[in-house]
């Protein structure tokens, strides 16, 4: 087990370097000059542009920029500064990540509880009315685009009923985050429910289930331990990758509900050619993906002892 974890951690290094390099190259190959872009229609003289470029190290060859950037991150945990406002990128990320983390955690809790809950009901009552109702409900959610769902929720709960504020204020209260979390977690909830349902319905007919029932175990234990544990592996896999997706994929939701998180920051950094901000963001997202996928792999062993690691 220990060796497995160590190997996995070592594997992270090339993945980490590779992804940051790729993103770095992609951003710098986009057309459009970030420094000239600061001046818009009115333009600026070459002397000023050259001075700004020099101060930011943008006049160096690309490999040298990447080298400087990576050494700063690794040695000083310094992600550089933003081109436009000169703020340290660690500050910018430090503001955006907690907000998105809060949103993603709420969305994750929502999809976990309701997704698995609905999946269990549907799985146990496979083919009956409850199962069909849940099927229709999840199909509906999957087929509605996120921004439509967002507007519907705003329309009904904020404008018609007046239960919630239409937008998340700048204090980012937890109570304000519930509506966007439901929108963000909605799609995954449907997938979780469908995965759980299929997995459970299949395993209901497995040999070990028959054995467990034949042994005379109480129904709660049969379902809660024997059935659930074995049915959770595909679901846990999905949930694991979904954490990363929730962190990075909230662009639309965050825009609709005026949340100043990672999603908006990614979009802004692309349009403003803030290369170093973007690389910093992606770096952290990559780490989140790597860590969660490691945790998921370790969780397999807990769920199913047949899966062992050398």
């Amino acid at each position: 087990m220990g060796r497995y974890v160590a190997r996995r951690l070592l594997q992270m290094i090339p993945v980490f370097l590779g992804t940051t390099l790729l993103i770095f190259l992609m951003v710098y190959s986009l057309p459009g000059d970030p420094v000239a872009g600061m001046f818009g229609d009115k333009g600026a003289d070459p002397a000023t542009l050259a001075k700004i470029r020099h101060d930011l190290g943008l006049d160096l060859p690309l490999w040298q920029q990447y080298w400087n950037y990576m050494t700063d991150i690794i040695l000083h945990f310094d992600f550089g500064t933003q081109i436009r406002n000169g703020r340290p990128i660690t500050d910018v990320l430090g503001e955006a990540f907690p907000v998105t983390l809060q949103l993603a955690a709420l969305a994750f809790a929502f999809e976990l509880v309701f997704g698995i809950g609905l999946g269990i009901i549907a799985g146990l009552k496979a083919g009956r009315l409850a199962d069909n109702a849940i099927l229709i409900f999840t199909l509906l959610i999957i087929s509605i685009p996120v921004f439509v769902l967002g507007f519907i929720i705003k329309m009904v709960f904020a404008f018609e009923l007046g239960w919630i504020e239409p937008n998340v204020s700048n204090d980012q209260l937890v109570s304000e985050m519930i509506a966007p979390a439901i929108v963000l977690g909605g799609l995954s909830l449907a997938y979780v429910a469908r995965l759980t349902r299929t997995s459970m319905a299949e395993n209901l007919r497995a040999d070990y289930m028959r054995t467990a029932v034949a042994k005379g175990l109480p129904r709660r234990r049969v379902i809660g331990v024997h059935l659930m544990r074995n049915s959770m592996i595909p679901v846990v896999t999905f949930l694991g990758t979904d954490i990363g997706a929730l962190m990075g994929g909230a662009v639309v939701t965050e825009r609709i509900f005026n949340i100043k998180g990672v999603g908006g920051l990614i979009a802004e950094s692309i349009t403003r050619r803030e290369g170093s901000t973007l690389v910093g963001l992606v770096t952290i997202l990559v780490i989140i993906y790597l860590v969660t996928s490691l945790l998921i792999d370790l969780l397999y062993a807990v769920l199913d002892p047949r899966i062992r690691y050398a």
Partner: protein
Amino acid sequence: MRGAKSAKWVTGAIIVALAATACGGGKSGGGSDAKGAVDPNGIFSVELGEPEKPLLTGDTMESNGSAVMAGLFSTLVDYKADGSLEMINAESVTTTDSKKWTVKLKAGWTFHDGTPVTSKSFVDAWNWNANVKNAQGLSSWFADIKGFDKVHPEAEGAKPTAETMEGLKVVDETTFTIELTKAVPYFGHKLAYIVFAPLPASFYKDPEAGGQKPVGNGPYKFKSWDHKKKIEITRYDDYKGPNKAKNGGVVFKNYTTLEAAYEDLKSGNVDVLRQIAPKDLPVYRQDLGDRAVDQPYSAIQTIAVAFYADQWKKPKAIDPRVVQGLSMAIDRATITKTVLNGTREPATGWVAKGVLGFQEDGGAGVTKFDPAKAKELIKAGGGVPNNKISIQYNADGGHKEWVDAVCNSIQQATDVQCVGDGKPDFQADLTARKTKQVKSLYRSGWVLDYPVNANFISDLFRTGAGGNQGDFSNKDLDAKIAKADSAATLDESVKAYQAIEKDLKNYMPSIPLWYYKVNAGFSEKVSGVAYGQDGDPILTGVEVKK
């Protein structure tokens, strides 16, 4: 097996507490006694994007930052709605030959940190802003001043040979003189711009902190900047200027989208908007009633010609009549009404409304929709090369719709093929302009820098001017501009520029489309909301109800 650690599913208790935070129009009831009464210390909020750059006087060029800076700093002068000057920090700004200017300051002004505002505060600030070492985006504003080329050499990588401009001289505590390299009759109007604001002595010790926590001399002092969330400024009680704040302060609230800001306006969470999102434009007048704002401001949208492109250059330079024809083929009235929801007003010339020297029909009829005449002109001018044009625009700015409409209009009126040439975003659009990759035409716009018609002509169409990105160049016009610039008085200069504008028709450096309007709104909590010529709300005049 029985004792096996079972995977525990700790289901984090979700509190579905759709908190019934009082928002069902709690304020609308209101105490009847307080109705209409004004709270002189009331604080109101304004929708604002995150300023792109630190709040430096020499580097704030976009509207988010300028809105805040306008509250924090006062310049020597400001201009009134008719374009005439009003003295703010200056007692007087005088000149006899438009070349040597003398500024007298009002006595007793202080910065927010308590230090006095003296002539040195201005001279030092200007020298700092102009110096190429400090890489301030607005440094070219000092180019008129004698000795600018020493502190800010044009060439890439060149080092400044002086720290101060020799044209600036401190006479005494409250007097200083400015010597320009040549006469600029409207230099007094330029002084209203934020880059000419004074800076306190403390600024130079740590300019970086000055950009995060600016200390100014304006009607408001800086309180806090919570990045991407809000900026707070409060009234400066020792303010000596004529534009003292009628409210206690302003909170600039950050929104990710204009739609979100509009929703918050309707639910009473924000008081003043600067702009309404396209989605809400068709309904905002009904929604807001007399709180809806619809007024012109000094900005213009044009289609500029990329004169360096082969299409316009080879085998011979394009005849202006062709561009005239294209201009007359555009049905501005219909497009502004339908596609743009009445948020723009058809332009009749190159100078925007509200600036000194604006004249009705400055384009001398070249913006009139007349398909027959358009066809005739294009034919007379030798036709559009290849009979095909394209209009470059940035697709992230909501320009596609009107570019398509303009193209349709041209195509229907003249049979010239016209397509939109969308660049993915503004950066790519700008790069294409800068590297001279524009194939035919491109959309362009201009918001006033100072309210004199010269700003819309000299700064756009003079050979080598900063805003002249299409490489338009004409010796006759340059000579006329130089003459207008050297006029003895402002009046004469403005008149000379009016004549030039009427004459621009014969050069057609660009096609004027329409003037911008402020489409905005405010909440029931505030009154006295007015918008300046730059389109930003005038903060000091807003009154907050109790």
